[in-house]
C-alpha cells in the first residue's frame, strides 16, 4: 500500500536575475532550500517565459568552468547553442534536453542560437545541476544531446495526457539520459482535468516545477504556474490534477548523502578539492575555449 507523500513547501517565483545577458531566471535551488536538502539536485534556475527582442549579437553566458556535477538544460521555448572545451557542442530547441557531464572539468559557453536571436521571441528554459557521486566527480566529461524525438512518451489512461521520460523510469519505460545515480526526470503534460499519480521511493528528493498551467496536488493544494513544489519524505505517491492544460517538470532522485563543498561553478566533497579545482582551472587543466 503506497502512502501519500505530502507537500513540504510551495515556492512562488522570486525576483528574477540575469545569468550573463541571455537567461532571466528565478532561482529555486538552493533558494528554496539548501543543496543538502535537495541532494542530488544542487541548483535549479528557471527562465520563465520571457520575450527576448531580435538582435544580431546573440545573448548568453560567456566561457566559464564547471567541475564535479552535471548541467542539464531543458528547453521549453527558444533555442540555445552550446560549446565546451571537451569538444562537445550543439543546439537545443523546444522539447530538447542537453545533459552535460562536467565531471573532472570543462569550460563552456551558452548562447541563444544565432538564427533564433535574429527574430528573438519567447524563451523558456530550466537549468539544473545534478550532483555527481564522489567516485565519479573526476571522471571524463561527456555530453548528451537528447532531442525531443528520442524522449520516450507514454500516453496516460483516460486521455489525461502524457509523460515524457527524460531520465529514469516510468512503469518500465526508461528515459533517454544516462545518469550516475538514480534520477527520475519527467515532463508531465496533462490536459485540463487530467489526473495522474506519481510514485517514487520515499527517501528520494522529489519536487515539481509548474512550467505551464495550474494543477491541484494531492487533491487539496493548488500549484500555480511558475511555482516550485517541494515534497516531504513521508510517503511515496502524490496525485496531480490539471486545472488547465499543464506542463510539469517532475524531479525525483536518490540522495547521494555525501559531504558538499561548493564555491561558484565547482561542487566537490571537500574544501581541499575546491582549492584544487581553482588551481586546475587557473593553470589550464580544463582546456581552452575561445570567448
Amino acid at each position, binding site marked *: 500500500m503506497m502512502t501519500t507523500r505530502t507537500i513540504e513547501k510551495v515556492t512562488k517565483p522570486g525576483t528574477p536575475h540575469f545569468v550573463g545577458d541571455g537567461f532571466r531566471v528565478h532561482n529555486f535551488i538552493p533558494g528554496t532550500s539548501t543543496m543538502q536538502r535537495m541532494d542530488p539536485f544542487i541548483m535549479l534556475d528557471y527562465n520563465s517565459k520571457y520575450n527576448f527582442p531580435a538582435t544580431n549579437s546573440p545573448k548568453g553566458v560567456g566561457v*566559464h*568552468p564547471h567541475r564535479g556535477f552535471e548541467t542539464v538544460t531543458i528547453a521549453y521555448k527558444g533555442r540555445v547553442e552550446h560549446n565546451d*572545451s*571537451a*569538444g562537445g557542442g550543439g543546439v537545443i530547441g523546444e522539447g530538447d534536453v542537453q545533459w552535460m557531464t562536467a565531471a573532472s572539468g570543462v569550460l563552456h559557453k551558452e548562447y541563444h542560437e544565432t538564427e533564433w536571436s535574429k527574430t528573438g521571441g519567447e524563451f523558456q528554459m530550466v537549468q539544473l545541476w545534478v550532483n555527481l557521486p564522489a567516485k565519479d566527480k573526476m571522471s571524463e566529461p561527456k555530453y548528451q544531446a537528447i532531442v525531443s524525438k528520442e524522449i520516450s512518451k507514454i500516453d496516460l489512461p483516460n486521455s489525461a495526457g502524457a509523460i515524457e521520460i527524460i531520465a529514469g523510469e516510468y512503469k518500465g519505460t526508461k528515459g533517454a539520459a544516462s545518469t550516475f545515480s538514480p534520477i527520475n526526470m519527467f515532463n508531465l503534460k496533462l490536459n485540463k482535468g487530467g489526473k495522474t499519480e506519481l510514485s517514487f521511493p520515499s527517501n528520494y528528493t522529489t519536487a515539481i516545477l509548474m512550467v505551464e498551467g495550474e494543477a491541484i496536488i494531492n487533491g487539496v493544494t493548488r500549484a500555480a504556474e511558475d511555482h516550485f513544489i517541494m515534497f516531504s519524505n513521508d510517503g511515496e505517491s502524490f496525485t496531480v490534477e490539471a486545472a488547465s492544460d499543464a506542463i510539469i517538470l517532475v524531479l525525483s532522485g536518490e540522495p547521494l548523502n555525501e559531504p558538499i563543498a561548493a*564555491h*561558484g*561553478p565547482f561542487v566537490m566533497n571537500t574544501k581541499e578539492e575546491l*582549492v584544487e579545482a*581553482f*588551481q*586546475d*582551472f*587557473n*593553470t*589550464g*587543466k*580544463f*582546456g*581552452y575555449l575561445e*570567448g
Partner: protein
Amino acid sequence: MLPNFKRHLIEKGGLSETQFQQVEPFLKTRMVAKGDFLLQQGDICNHSFFVEQGVLRFYALNKEGKENILQFATENWIVSDRGSVFFQEPSTYYIDAVEDTLTVMLDDDFMSEVAKVNPNFRAQNERLLQNHIRHLYKRISQLLGATAKERYLDFVNMYPDIMLRVPQWMIASYLGITPESLSRVRKALAKENFNSDLF
C-alpha cells in the same frame, strides 16, 4: 554582520571577541554598486577600504585615457591611496567597484578606537603595512623582469577565484600585458596541462 572584517580584526589585529564588540559601534560601512567610485582623481582619500564582500579595483589613467590597474581587492583585502590619506593631498588614482561591494571604511578615528581597546593593534597594523610594501616590491620586480606567464601564475595563486569575477582585459591591465597576450598565455597553459587531442 561583517564576518570577514570581524575575523580580520581578531586574527590579524589581535583583538579578542570582547574587544571586537567594544569597537563594533564605531564601524562604518558602505555599499558600492558595480561601476560606482569610492575615489576619483582630484579627491582627497580619507579611508582605507576593507572588502567585506565584492571586488574593488585601484587604477590610474594615463594620458591616452588607458586604465592601468595597480591592485584588485577581493574579500579580506584592503585598498586605499595611502599617499593621499597620509599627506592629505589630492589623489591621482581611482577606486571603483567591479562587483556590487560591501566595504568597511577605515579611518584614523576608527584605528584610534581599536588602539584604545587593544594597545598592540598599532604594531599589528604596522605589520600589515610592511607586508603590503613587500608585496609592492615583488610586483615592481615582476613588472620589470618576469615573463607574462610568470606574472599570470603568481597572480592567480594570489587571487584564486579572480578569473571568474573580473573581465580578461582588466586582468591583462593588472599584469601589464595586452589581452591578446593573456589569451596566448592561457592557451599555452592549457596545451601544457590539459590532456586532450583538441590542440
